[in-house]
Each structure stands twice: as C-alpha cells, then as structure tokens.
C-alpha cells in the first residue's frame, strides 16, 4: 500500500502509461478456474466476446488460451460455450494444479489447450491500490 514520493509522480494524478492495469493481477480472485479444451473448441469465440476481463487469449482470430493472470473465474465463458460443444470446464481452483488428471477425467476431451501460465512481468507492485474495489466500492465511490 505504500505509494511513491510526491516529487516522483506525474502531477495532476495523470497516468501516462495506457493500459498498465495489465500489470495488475486479478487471477488470485478466482475460486473456480476455467479449463479450455482445445480439441472440443469450435472457435465460435462466444467466450471471447462475453468475457468481462479480456481474459480469453486470441491469436489470428482463434482462441489459444486463457489469461489466468486476469481471469476472475466468473464462469461466463463456460456458460456461454454452446451446450453441445462444452469446451470450457470450471473446476475448483484448489484442485486445478494437475492438468493431466483433469484432462483424463473428461471424456473425449483429447488434451487440454495451451494455458497461459506465465504471470505478466511488472515494474509496479501488484499490491498497490485496492483489491476487489467492485465488491467494496461503497467505501470509495461518491457517497451518493
């Protein structure tokens, strides 16, 4: 929570680094983790267009994985994946370490897709600011 010295930060509270929230991780909010099953995926991209956290990674018009640094585990992607396709499974976060076990427990899944397990590099402290402001923002918004 300790910030930087007043002489060191841009005046007027301007943030000149667009999109630097990418360096802030919200992945640890998750209690459920979406597992993308590459071989089942029909690339309809509904998960991508409905994700609140820009956490479905696409490359050249195709889903290639899930950004676990930012995914909060809401499960909209799994819910929006067409029922017949069922290419995203939500599993409990504390049971999600062994990918092979998960893959083999799901019939006809083939293999699980490439998963983005790399955490973004950041020059900023991830603990700065409030976490989960949306959930307790009553304390920070205008008290109207």
């Amino acid at each position, binding site marked *: 929570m300790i*910030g*930087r010295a007043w002489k060191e*930060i841009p005046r007027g*509270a301007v*943030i000149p*680094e*667009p*999109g*630097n*929230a*990418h*360096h*802030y*991780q*919200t992945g640890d*909010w*998750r209690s459920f983790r979406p597992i993308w099953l590459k071989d089942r995926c029909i*690339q*309809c*991209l*509904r998960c*991508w*267009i*409905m*994700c*609140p*956290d*820009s*956490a479905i990674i*696409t490359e*050249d*018009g*195709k889903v290639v994985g899930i*950004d676990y*640094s*930012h995914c*909060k*585990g*809401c*499960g*909209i992607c*799994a*819910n*929006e994946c*067409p029922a017949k396709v069922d290419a995203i499974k*939500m599993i409990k976060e504390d049971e999600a370490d062994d990918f092979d076990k998960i893959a083999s427990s799901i019939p006809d899944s083939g293999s699980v897709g490439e998963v983005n397990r790399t955490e973004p590099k950041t020059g900023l402290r991830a603990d*700065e*600011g*409030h*976490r*989960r*402001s*949306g*959930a307790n*923002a*009553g304390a920070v*918004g*205008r*008290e*109207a």
Partner: protein
Amino acid sequence: MAEQSAALDTRHERQYSTRGVVLMPVPTTLKELSKKPEILTGGHRLCAGCGAPIAVRQILKALETPVVIGNATGCLEVATSIYPYTAWRCSWIHTAFENAAATISGVEAAYRSLRRQGKVKSEFRFIAFGGDGGTYDIGLQSLSGAMERGHRMVYVCYNNEAYMNTGIQRSSATPLGADTTTSPAGSAIPGKPVPRKDLTAIMAAHNIPYVAQASPSNWLDLIKKADKALNADGPAFLNVLAICPRGWRTESNEGVEIMRLAVDTCYWPLYEVDNGVWRITYKPKDKKPVEEWLKRQGRFKHLFTAENKHIIEELQAEVDRNWQRLLELSEKTS
C-alpha cells in the same frame, strides 16, 4: 443463439450520413472482431461476472479511430482507474459523477477547435460512459444539455438498474418491486413502489440523430448500434443493460443468460431510433413471460408470493404496453 447466427449473415450497411472521414465498416464476425485491438485491459477491479466491461468491450470493438472516453463516477470508473493503474489503452477522463456528458462535450469542443486550427491531425471519436445513477438521475441535466448542443459524441448508459457502487440503492432506472437497500422488500412496502422511467424515449425526444437500446447478450446488435452511434452526424445515446450479479443477486456465470432473458421477455426490448425512425432490431420468436426474467434474480424473489403477485402482473402490463408502443412507433415512422 440461433437469432445471433442468423444475424451474422447480414452485413451491416451504413444508411447514415457521416460528418468525418468515411471509414471501413466495422467487421461483423467475431473472428475479425477479435483481431481488433483490446482497449480495455484485464487487471481492472470490477467484480467477477460484471456486465459493464462486457458492454464496454463490445462497444469499443466498433471503433475505427482513436477515442477519448469520459467516465462518470461509478463502478466502471473506480475499478478501472485505481492509481497508479489504468485499464484504458485510450485517452480517458473522469471528473465527477453528474457531468460525464459535459466533460466529454468540452473535450469534443477542444477537438473541433484544435482540428480546425490544424493542431490535431487524427480523426477522433468521443464516448461518455455512465451508470444509470450517473445518467438517469444526477447526470440527466448534463446529458440533456450535451445532446441538445449537438456535440458529436456517444453517451452510453451502462444500466444495472441501481446505484451499485455505493451498495445497491434504488435509482430511477430500478424497476417496480425490486429489492434494493433504499427500497427494501419490507413487510409494508415490498420493494420499489414506483416504476422505472423510460430514459431511452426521453433521449429520443431530444431528436438527436441516433438513440438505441441494447444488451451485450446480443453482441452483434450492440456492436452495430455502437458503430452507427459512433458515426452518426451528431450526438448519439445508447442505453445498454449491464448485469450486476451482486445487486441482482445472481451467480457470476449467469449474467449473459439473464440479460438474454430481459431481451426475450421484452423487458429490455432492442430497438433504435435512427433519425426519427423507430425500428425494433430484434423480435423474439416467442415473447416469454416477464416471470422468466424475474425469477432468476434474488432482487425479485419476494414478488413470488400470493400477496405480491399483483406486482408481477403490473410489471407484465408495463412490458406489454411498452412493447405495443414500440411496435406502433416502428410501424408509424418507418
């Protein structure tokens, strides 16, 4: 989903005039849209399953130029700009709660002036985002003024039907009967005692080039409307439903499904008023009873009792009346 795929086949044609450069039409396939830049990054602090960033992401996919976004105080604003972080890859400004429209109108005026003087070279678009509190209530004057003045800007209300940032207080967008912390489901007064106001119609009465109502559940419809709004020859207003799992008391994974029910029950009809022509952009094959929408949400749970049944009937009557009116208006003006 069938309706969405059908809609995929019809490419959106521009039937409106543009004041600036005529740009490439916005892509209408997700494959192509996914190749466009992501302006809102992950790492924002909105709740899991929040509808606001879904709406924002979809709307911003319609952009073909740089943009400046103004944001009213509210969940979207606080959770995307916690210093020293910003989730916005574009220029963005928040000043206060009631004045997103006035603030962005000043930015747009600066743009017109500086562009005329040759000091700004790029084509820009201007969007203001406000919640329903910042739009229907405290920001209505500022919004009305900006629309009347003819600024070329798009005002987007992400409407989650209550003051969610302060902890679920009723606004004038809150529907009849809804349980909020300032319209609690008490034993004497069961939820909000008066109906929501029809802001989309109020905005249409400003006779601005483009007004529409949309929902992120119907993404293509929303992106097309955003595209029209962004390229309208003057001010445009979008009223976009945005689920709040906490305020509506739903599971975080159900949001899109529930917003789709709002559309399929005609509780939240999808339509546009394009230069005075009212057009329903999506007609559900089977208009579902409003109960289908209500029963999925904790905020309406108390309505499902014998003594409160009449509130559901009133809500159904309101929905039917409004739908009928929209059918008539689209008949009359087209």
